[in-house]
């Protein structure tokens, strides 16, 4: 659904309008490829249903020469069996290591076994080796002082070397337990905090534009009918608030808070060193964010998209915010 109603009017247009829209119908290459492949599959199906040799098979026959060298199907079985044996050896090795450690009585994370098994195709005749990666925790009760800095070994190495314990504590990636509670994981560790700051600003703007501020109904502004003194305005002046608003929101997103800008009848005014409000109460939407649910959905070096749950008048909704790094600062491009 379009965010701008003006462009909704272009739906169900006549041929002339559609022709003009087709001029700007840029389609990503991957989408084109996807549609093309889908259409070929459908076409092949239609042709088969009508006892017509599908085009792609016809083309393939013309280009294939010689005879395929087929391998017996037992090759695949042998390859699968070899992979299973590799996994079992890995598990056995882990058991041996655990027994060697003896158990210190301290809660230690179990060793993580990651087995990478390659599958073979029916026409290839090789069996790939499996790579077993193991890590162990650092047990203080070890008496065996043999140490190694390398905790990985291939299948062949496991069968010939003795196991050695790892002296370095396991890395976060090797430990199977869940990482410590954080709000979210993101490639750029700064983005979650930046996103939170921007969501907090949204809350401020939302409340201000909804007149959700504390004001004194008995303290009027001289010369301004209907304006009342605001208590604890979050900025030193209305001008400062507008500057912050324009520095935080893009041109397209600031329209949501246009009532805070300098209009014919602004909600807030500066007068005799104070801020006054002409209240226009309405519901605040983007407040009560549950920051534990904040996550970075996508990101690049100069932009990211963040989402967070919020209390939408008793229901849980998700706010999505697209941010961009423009002229040395992060701004909110879209909030929805």
């Amino acid at each position, binding site marked *: *659904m*379009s*965010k*701008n*109603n*003006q*462009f*909704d*009017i*272009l*739906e*169900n*247009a*006549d*041929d002339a*309008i*559609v*022709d*003009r*829209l*087709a001029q*700007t*119908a*840029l*389609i*990503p290459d991957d*989408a*084109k490829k*996807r*549609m*093309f492949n*889908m*259409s*070929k599959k*459908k*076409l092949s199906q*239609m*042709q088969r249903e009508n006892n017509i040799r599908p*085009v*792609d098979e*016809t*083309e393939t026959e013309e280009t294939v020469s010689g005879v395929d060298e087929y391998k017996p199907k037992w090759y695949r079985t042998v390859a699968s069996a070899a992979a299973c044996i590799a996994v079992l050896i890995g598990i056995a090795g882990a058991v041996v290591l655990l027994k060697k450690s003896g158990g210190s009585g301290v809660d230690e994370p179990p060793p993580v076994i990651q087995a990478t098994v390659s599958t073979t195709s029916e026409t290839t005749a090789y069996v790939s080796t499996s790579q077993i990666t193991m890590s162990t925790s650092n047990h203080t009760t070890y008496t065996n002082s043999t140490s190694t800095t390398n905790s990985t070994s291939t299948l062949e190495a496991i069968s010939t070397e003795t196991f050695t314990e790892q002296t370095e504590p396991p890395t976060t990636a090797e430990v199977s337990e869940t990482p410590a509670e954080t709000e979210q994981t993101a490639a750029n560790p700064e983005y979650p905090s930046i996103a939170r700051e921007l969501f907090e600003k949204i809350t401020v703007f939302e409340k201000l534009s909804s007149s959700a501020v504390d004001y004194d109904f008995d303290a009027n502004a001289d010369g301004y009918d209907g304006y009342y003194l605001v208590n604890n305005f979050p900025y030193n002046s209305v001008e400062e608030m507008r500057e912050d608003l324009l520095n935080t929101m*893009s*041109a*397209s997103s600031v329209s949501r808070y246009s009532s805070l800008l300098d209009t014919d009848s602004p909600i807030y005014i500066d007068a005799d060193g104070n801020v006054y409000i002409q209240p226009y109460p309405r519901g605040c939407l983007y407040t009560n964010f549950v920051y534990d649910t904040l996550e970075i959905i*996508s990101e*690049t070096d*100069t*932009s990211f998209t963040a989402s967070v749950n919020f209390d939408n008048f008793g229901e849980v909704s998700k706010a999505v915010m*697209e941010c*961009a*790094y*423009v002229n040395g600062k992060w701004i909110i*491009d879209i909030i929805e």
Partner: protein
Amino acid sequence: MTASEYCKLYKKSPDTAYEQLFSSYCSYVYAVVYNKLRSTASREDIEECVSDIFADIYFNYDTTSSFDGDMKGYISTIAKRKSIDLYRKLNARNIHISDSDDETLSYINSDTDIEADSDKAEMQTILLNAVEGLGEPDSTILIQKFYYDRSSSEIAELLSMKASAVRMRCGRAMEKLKSILSKAGITA
């Protein structure tokens, strides 16, 4: 691509003919389908409809025909019909089946509002003229953003621009568009 060009190519290599047909008309067919299904179907449904259309065109087009004109008319008809079929399928729950006889049905007014349709067509033209008047790449950015509902990063990739530049241009272009439309007496 004319019909005769397509038929000649088909005789040489059906696969190549199909690829050529697809690349020539993919954007057009997509635009037709999208215009009909924009607020009803997901992007995946629209892409599937486009692929159905091309499979249908290829399967049913008579390559022995002597017609030498543009294939666009034929393709457009198939595209519109398929789009409408999908539209009806997706809105099936809203269709009411009436058991009334023909005499009763004749008393029910058509929901066609000629005046409203005419106004709408005029608005569409005004809007498109205003958008195209902004020049490139602003007009493409606005259409892609607000009509085709693409994100700034998708548009940036299509236009080989930076996403931040797309956002900047989009904001400015919208301001200009609002100004042009308000001068024409149209407000948001």
